[in-house]
């Protein structure tokens, strides 16, 4: 009975120009029970075989008895491992033998659109897999595996910054893609200290967790708690952001390779072969009881959560403070208080940023949104409207007519010295430095650039 399955990569014969995926099955006592090899080729046959490296394996539970594997593959003899591969098996419950069910090759256009062999590209394959009884969750690292043996690289992965990765959900029964998200980790292009991207995933009924490695000063180990239903997770610009990938050959999309464009050949050989048993002991280590060999590490952390807030619809500077608060919007924050810089969205999946404009958020406050984030938080000013002339110099002001409505924050009918005068009822646009009059004989002077009536004004000068 096969109950343990290891997955990996082999070279099928000496000097082969391809790699193949392999699964070796064992019983609980590590008696090898069978081996499987998986080979990809295009329709012209063995001479055009493709390379396949398998990276992950999981079991979906007894209700469905499926074992699925993921990895990366080439799309030709001299191509790079720029495609992602997923294959599901039905498992015989009495013997543990696997038979192929469905598979998918997908190009994840995270870094590049598919390019010929002369251009490596950086698009990765699937590295991690976690299954429940209905769905398969998979994730890439941050970029592709390299086809070279280079000890200085990161377990044969390229690294770069910012880094892109993909996390996806497939339906087990038929391989339907439920969602694929593109993640961007970090922001600037550097030359050292590259992050790894997604280094592991773990699944619970209501959450998919992904450990990630994001480069920043004094960075620690981070993780995402993702909604498995739709792939939603809160992000933060420059650290981790995500967007849904469309089915598209364009950059940022994903391409499914038609099943008619390639052949998958799976061979199954029962029994044990090529096994070397090593006599081994488990020894004590050099971690001494002197406990200063163990260190308490003290990370600080920020938790980015999507909070909701009450707001008006988008408004203008002149009407925001009288706008009705009747909307529920959302912001990303590390606390429940919206602040300057908070990313703001109109939906609970944080997919639609608020349009630029003014939004009233309380009886006394409004925010200004620019490029999807809060550029300022402002106080609604209580103002008094009054009729006034426009502004001009002192020699001309008496000739002006009184045809404008302005607003001041003072207590009188007309602005007094020290009051601020605005051209809008929201109290956001101050009058320019100049002379104005508010009746046939009295004028006031604005100086200082902040709309403030100069001391000793208004004066009866007309």
């Amino acid at each position, binding site marked *: 009975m096969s109950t343990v399955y290891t997955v990996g990569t082999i070279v099928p014969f000496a000097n082969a120009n391809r790699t193949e995926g392999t699964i070796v099955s064992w019983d609980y006592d590590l008696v090898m029970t069978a081996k499987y090899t998986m080979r990809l080729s295009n329709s012209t046959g063995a001479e055009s075989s493709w390379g396949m490296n398998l990276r992950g394996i999981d079991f979906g539970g*007894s209700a469905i008895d499926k074992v699925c594997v993921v990895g990366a593959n080439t799309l030709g003899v001299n191509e790079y491992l720029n495609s992602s591969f997923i294959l599901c098996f039905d498992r015989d419950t009495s013997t543990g033998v696997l038979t192929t069910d469905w598979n998918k090759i997908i190009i994840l256009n995270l870094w590049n659109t598919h390019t010929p062999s002369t251009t490596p590209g950086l698009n990765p394959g699937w590295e991690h897999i976690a299954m429940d009884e209905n769905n398969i969750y998979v994730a890439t690292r941050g970029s592709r595996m390299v086809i070279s043996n280079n000890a200085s690289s990161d377990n044969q992965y390229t690294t770069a910054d910012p880094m892109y990765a993909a996390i996806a959900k497939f339906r087990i029964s038929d391989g339907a893609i439920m969602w694929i998200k593109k993640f961007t980790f970090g922001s600037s292009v550097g030359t050292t200290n590259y992050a*790894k991207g997604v280094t592991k995933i*773990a699944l619970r009924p209501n959450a998919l967790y992904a450990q990630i*490695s994001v480069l920043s000063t004094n960075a620690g180990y981070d993780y995402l708690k993702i909604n498995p239903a739709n792939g939603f997770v809160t992000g933060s610009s420059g650290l981790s952001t995500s967007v849904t990938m469309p089915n598209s050959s364009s950059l940022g999309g994903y391409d499914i390779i038609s099943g008619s464009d390639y052949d998958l050949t799976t061979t199954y050989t029962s029994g044990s072969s090529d096994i070397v048993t090593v006599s081994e002991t488990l020894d004590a280590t050099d971690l001494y009881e002197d406990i200063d060999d163990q260190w308490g590490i003290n990370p600080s952390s920020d938790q980015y959560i999507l909070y909701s807030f009450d707001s008006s619809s988008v408004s203008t500077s002149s009407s925001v403070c009288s706008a009705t608060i009747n909307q529920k919007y959302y912001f990303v924050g590390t606390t429940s208080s919206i602040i300057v810089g908070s990313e703001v969205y109109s939906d609970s999946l944080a997919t639609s940023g608020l349009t630029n404009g003014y939004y009233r958020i309380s009886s006394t406050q409004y925010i200004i949104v620019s490029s999807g984030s809060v550029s300022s938080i402002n106080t609604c000013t209580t103002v008094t409207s009054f009729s006034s002339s426009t502004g001009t110099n002192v020699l001309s002001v008496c000739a002006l007519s009184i045809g404008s409505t302005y607003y001041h924050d003072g207590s009188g009918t007309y602005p007094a010295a020290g009051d601020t005068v605005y051209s809008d009822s929201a109290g956001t646009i101050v009058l320019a430095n100049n002379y104005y009059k508010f009746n046939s004989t009295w004028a006031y002077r604005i100086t200082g650039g902040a709309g403030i009536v100069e001391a000793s004004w208004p004066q009866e000068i007309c």
Partner: protein
Amino acid sequence: MALPAPGNPISANMINVEATRTGTTYAPLSVNAVPVTTSLVGLYVDSGVNQIAPHAYSEFYSKSFTIPPSPYWFVDTTNTPSIGKKYQYSGSNVIQNSSSALGTNYNTTLAAYGGSGLTINSDELLVSGGSVSSSGTSSGERHPLLTCYDETTGLPDISTAYDWQGTVYHWTSDMQFIDGFPNQVFWVDQEKSYSAWDDDGATDRRRYGVVYTDTTIAVFSGSTVTYPKLFQYTNMVRRIDNSTHQQGYFYSSPKIGTVNFANAVSPYTDTTKSYIYICNQIKNEILGDDYEYNGGIVRMTYEPPQYNGGLTSALTSPIFKVYQQNPGSAGSPWGTSDMTTFADICVLPNNEET
């Protein structure tokens, strides 16, 4: 935007609608003394409705529905100098020693020798792996790191790094809650020789440990001592030291699977133990360069011991097998067959045998 004021009629339908649900949605008031999240009281947890029983419709008067924060998040951790402190005994506790702070040259390693691994138990307790560098990211030692997170808030609770002796790069490769032992995490170290010595893609030693995600109490020098979460007892960590069948790391990072025989399906009936399996790449130093990398698997038996730093090992009875079928160097574009490896493992639960 708000439910009716006191003295006015109020209904479950109105409360549903205020919460942007269909008015006729089934709407129990609380179900339990601690309201379930889909009940009316539970739904209004962030709206100022009293969550303590007994509950009443009158508590919804004048309330406006506030959507609770999304339970999905991104946790970004930062380790600023000084990153941490060495542990010391202090009375009946083990605490961080303020006089032994790690220098500012210590930081968490995210580059090539950064760690990996993530596991979670049914209590939503998350544990992750990493590594700490003692001298930036380009030289010096690397030390494996484990972090566990608060089950409720999701924020880092405690992190511990382990200082193996010698100048070798270590990082946590993988960890898993041990099947049958939900507060015990098995973790596997990955090593790389110091680049000035033998940077050939493999090392003789590989280390395996089990830590508790709870605080533990043990006797040290005749006194009862409380040890912190993730403390590594010496009798719960073991190594394989094999200069022939080395641990390779080209295209490979050790992975773990565990099984406990709680269902006692014959012939596996010992519910007190778990089997732990580790797969990784093996480099055979005796074989020629074109053939030396293959996949390997180790099984060991875990039995929770008295975690007293004593002599009884928690990890015993290793079985070590190599699937040795590397046919030699590959053709273009690969050039090498060094990618031959096991990359991952899955172990079925015991009840799958039936």
